């Protein structure tokens, strides 16, 4: 019995020493982190995570919120008062909902300037209006996210050999709507692929966009009209002329009849099945990095391993060589207008801080420090992607940027950088893939202005009317193009659109636009 007692006492002593010993050490600050997004939960043994924790002397508890179920997952967690210290929200809806539930710490520009001076500088330089999207009633509730790819508008591409057959010089392409129309008739009527069968078309659904653009709007974007007000592209007067032209082309057999279901028939969204199979002469499916050439880095000649880039996604399954694709400009319309699709610079995403940090200034400063360092220090930024110049797996090349040394597979290394790439510094992105961005900057068509959605908020009545209005638009546009509805009924369509909620949303949109 005595023995047992002494054993117990000894154990108790040992335990207390262990507990005190642990407390005596400098406990790292625990941060609940959703400073980005990911496609899978962070593995516990992730090397980048360990590196960051050591660098900043913190413990990061990374949450995984599946993007497609984000609304439900957040709703449950917020209701249980589970709010991470820093959390990224993908949509304006979620952001507004979090702000209304008072979960987001209110920030001020002075505060941001004090806590993350370096990142604020480039943010302001890249997009001075970037805090618009993360403000509610003039108060800032989060950090914005900007998108480098919003700098470069879409440009259409042509079948080079078909244009040459028509008489165009090598490297030349139609630049106006009249020239494009002439080429379209040739594509559909003169058997440009020379197979003796009348199986070619000029244009399908993505190719419509540059045509609409030549008449002053895109049907699915808000534009600023001549009066200086916001107007939805679908009901903009110029669209009637564009539709008349498209209806004429459809009647004359220039338009791929399958345009209703679209050029993309599964697979990656940027694929154009009719273009890649040689049925179509003109398309605008995919952004610049999906139609880019192959910038592949050095490869192991024996095994073919290594390298980085491949042809842009849209161009990967071509049934003809990539040299037969000619990237052109968005053709200019009768009033000198032109343009294609373009993404906004500031996205609808927001990075918020927990309201609980209001009385934990040290922790807030620490989180800002991490965000600012990753956002403004190139070496740290590279490290979150697992690119380490001291690591033998990685090499840097002036032309291609980072590439893997032959024999190392990049996929296996696991990549959770998005989780830490809170601010998505576009300049770093450019720096790390110089070939792609130098190419994009050297191509004049990617350095023009496209149509950016000018309504950068979600209006109050959006949820009530928008999906109905969109199906009305889509249905009517298809009917107009296919000639099932005469364009004499254009005014009726516009009236119906306004009547079914378009009027309210337009009023709300303008209220936001004129007061922002």
């Amino acid at each position: 019995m005595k023995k047992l007692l002494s054993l117990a006492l000894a154990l108790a002593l040992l335990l207390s020493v262990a507990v005190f010993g642990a407390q005596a050490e400098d406990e790292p600050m625990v941060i609940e982190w959703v400073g980005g997004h990911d496609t899978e939960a962070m593995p516990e043994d992730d090397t980048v995570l360990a590196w960051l924790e050591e660098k900043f002397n913190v413990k990061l508890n990374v949450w995984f919120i599946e993007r497609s179920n984000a609304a439900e997952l957040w709703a449950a967690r917020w209701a249980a008062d589970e709010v991470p210290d820093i959390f990224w929200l993908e949509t304006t809806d979620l952001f507004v909902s979090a702000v209304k539930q008072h979960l987001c710490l209110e920030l001020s520009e002075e505060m941001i300037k004090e806590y993350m001076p370096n990142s604020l500088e480039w943010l302001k330089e890249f997009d001075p209006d970037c805090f618009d999207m993360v403000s509610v009633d003039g108060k800032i509730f989060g950090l914005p996210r900007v998108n480098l790819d919003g700098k470069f508008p879409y440009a259409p591409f042509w079948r080079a050999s078909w244009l040459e057959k028509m008489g165009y010089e090598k490297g030349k392409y139609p630049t106006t709507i009249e020239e494009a129309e002439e080429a379209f008739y040739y594509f559909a009527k003169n058997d440009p692929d020379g197979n003796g069968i009348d199986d070619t078309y000029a244009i399908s659904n993505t190719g419509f966009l540059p045509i609409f653009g030549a008449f002053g709007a895109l049907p699915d974007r808000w534009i600023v009209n001549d009066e200086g007000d916001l107007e939805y592209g679908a009901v903009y007067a110029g669209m009637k002329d564009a539709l008349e032209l498209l209806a004429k082309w459809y009647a004359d057999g220039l338009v791929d009849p399958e345009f209703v279901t679209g050029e993309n028939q599964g697979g990656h969204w940027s694929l154009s099945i009719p273009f890649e199979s040689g049925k179509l002469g003109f398309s605008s499916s995919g952004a610049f990095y999906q139609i880019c050439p192959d910038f592949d880095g050095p490869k192991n000649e024996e095994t073919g391993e290594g390298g980085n880039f491949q042809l842009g996604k849209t161009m990967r399954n071509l049934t003809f060589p990539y040299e037969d694709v000619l990237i052109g400009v968005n053709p200019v319309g009768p009033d000198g207008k032109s343009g294609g699709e373009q993404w906004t610079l500031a996205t609808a995403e927001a990075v918020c801080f927990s309201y609980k940090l209001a009385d934990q200034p040290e922790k807030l400063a620490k989180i800002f420090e991490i965000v600012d360092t990753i956002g403004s220090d190139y070496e740290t930024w590279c490290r979150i992607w697992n690119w380490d110049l001291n690591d033998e797996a990685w090499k840097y090349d002036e032309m291609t940027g980072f590439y893997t040394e032959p024999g190392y597979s990049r996929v296996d290394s696991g990549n959770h950088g998005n989780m830490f790439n809170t601010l998505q510094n576009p300049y770093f992105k450019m720096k790390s893939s110089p070939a792609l961005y130098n190419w994009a900057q050297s191509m004049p068509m990617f350095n023009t202005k496209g149509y950016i959605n000018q309504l950068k908020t979600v209006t109050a009545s959006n949820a009530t009317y928008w999906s109905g209005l969109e199906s009305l638009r889509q249905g009517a546009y298809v009917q107009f193009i296919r000639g099932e509805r005469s364009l004499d009924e254009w005014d009726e369509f516009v009236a119906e659109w306004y009547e079914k909620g378009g009027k309210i949303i337009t009023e709300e949109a303008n209220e936001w636009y004129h007061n922002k």
Partner: protein
Amino acid sequence: MNVSETNKTYVKKMRPSHVYEGRGEWLFQGILIFIMVVLSITFLYPYWHVLVTSLTSPDAAEGSGFKLWPKVFSFDSYNQMFHTKTLWTGYKNTLIVVVMGWAVSISLNILGAYALSKKTLPLRGTFTGIIILTMFAQGGMIPTYLVVTKTLGMKNTYWAVILPQCVSVSHLVIMRNYFMNLPQELEEASIIDGANSFQVLIKVILPLSMPMIATISLWVIVSNWNAYFNCLLYITDASKYVLQIIMRRIIQTDSKEMTYAGELADQLETDTVTLRAASIMLATIPIICVYPFLQKYFVKGVLIGSLKG
């Protein structure tokens, strides 16, 4: 009635059903068989297509159209899948959830249903009513989440995935009705032989209920195998994620809002079509394998060998 006549009727009765009379009958059967074959092919083809895609070499797989046979045969996608560490974690966790979930679910359902099937149970109608009420009025996701995580403290445990849905009202009602239809005399006989309630349930009722238990087991197993959202909701520990979440990541298509890694994936992704196909096969084959084992219970009659009617 003489003997030969009786024999005749007997022979006619016993004539195997596949002996058809007349041309009309042949035609009719032919049409039926044709329709069934076409239907079966329609159901099987998508699965076959996925199988073929998963066995095609990544380079040859893209593009649309019918696929009857791999253009270039390759096990690359499966190889790559099998080298994914998380896949095995997913299998392990799914197996735990399926086996534990099945055991808990079936035992609770049987106990509950058996009790409710007894007319002597006090307040039987009230209990049944309360249980059935939950079919129409549910607590909703957020209160359930609060109960599971805050009250029961089951966040990040397998129980969070298993318990909240282990008793399904429809399963319970089906079981209850089944038990109620079993002849009372069977139980009485065993009680006379000295069996207590548990013995009656285990030795008499359950052996007679195998077809029904097999059916419900299958539902329970399939639904646990497919468990996805509850796991996302209650489990944050990556080492406890079930297979479907891991598969989902592989199948997930790119979103249009490109981010840096998105673009990288764009550049790297040469073989997602075949990888996706392989992951679908890997996620479905094990569960399909369960069917043949349960099949035998469906065929057997309910009361074979118990009572002579």
